């Protein structure tokens, strides 16, 4: 019998350790840079689905797809009176409306008195508000929460989706996307 041949020579000896180190690095990466929780709509770049919602507030008409394909870009704001960030973005929506942006609203799972109180308190920047009582339109456009704001071009194509409340810093981007959509 000869002396046993070393099972692995040179660098292959370190291969398991290297693989383990790679695995640890991967886990550490995942821990320190967790994936975002936002679920973007896959319908960005595609036409809005057909829908028609009854009015959600007295004095404002309801909202249908046809209202969002009228030759000029508009904002479609998915919101609710029971949603706290929706109140936080109200000043920014007011600012956009004051700048001449047309904002159409979809009120998700909202009761008329609640919505009326919300609009009275935080302002009403909307041209129309549709009542989405069972999140039907929200699901149909791939929105995963409130508030979300979609830039819709004049042909009714979704051009941009903003997830979460619009902060003061987001306003220029929204305006830029609206300009892009009008070209």
């Amino acid at each position, binding site marked *: 019998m000869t002396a046993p041949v070393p099972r692995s020579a040179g660098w292959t000896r370190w291969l398991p350790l290297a693989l383990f180190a790679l695995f640890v690095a991967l886990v550490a990466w995942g821990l320190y840079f967790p994936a975002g929780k936002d679920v973007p709509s896959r319908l960005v770049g595609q036409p809005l689905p057909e829908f028609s919602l009854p009015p959600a507030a007295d004095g404002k008409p309801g909202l249908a797809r046809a209202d969002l394909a009228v030759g000029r870009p508009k904002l479609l704001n998915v919101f609710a009176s029971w*949603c706290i960030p929706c109140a936080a973005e109200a000043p920014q929506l007011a600012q956009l409306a004051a700048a001449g942006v047309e904002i159409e609203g979809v009120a*998700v*799972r909202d009761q008329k008195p609640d919505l009326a109180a919300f609009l009275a308190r935080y302002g009403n920047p909307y041209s129309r508000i549709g009542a989405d009582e069972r999140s039907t339109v*929200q*699901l149909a456009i791939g929105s*995963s929460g409130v508030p979300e704001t979609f830039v819709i071009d004049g042909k009714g194509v979704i051009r941009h989706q903003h997830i979460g409340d619009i902060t003061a810093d987001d306003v220029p981007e929204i305006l830029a996307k609206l300009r892009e959509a009008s070209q």
Partner: protein
Amino acid sequence: MMRLLLALFAVLFALTAPLAAEDTMPPAPYAYRQLDDPALEAKAQTLMQTIRCLTCQSQSIADSDASMAGDLRSQIRERIAAGEQPEAIRTWLVQRYGDYISYTPRVTSLTWPLFAAPLAILLMAGLLLRKRFGRSGTA
């Protein structure tokens, strides 16, 4: 004693009061109600258990009490009752939310390594074992 207990309960309730706002809308008709036809209900259940709740992202819509999950359950039951196939509804949802909404992974250009890795590892293990046994055989 009773008073103390009541006070304790009051404190507990105050602590467990929801931090996030919830709507006051009653749940959609089929959010918490099964379909009358057990076969259709079973179809709906199977689908709902593999659709992710977008509000509570680690739960399926079958497990979640989020209002949006309830609305989606109701919609799925209504669509299945109307004759739609569960996989057609899954496709409809994936078109809107991407593969993320489905708990049943598909083989795509992005996910194929997940399916290929076990096969590759098995193959590698087989080769290694053969090498090792081959060596001890000749030694």
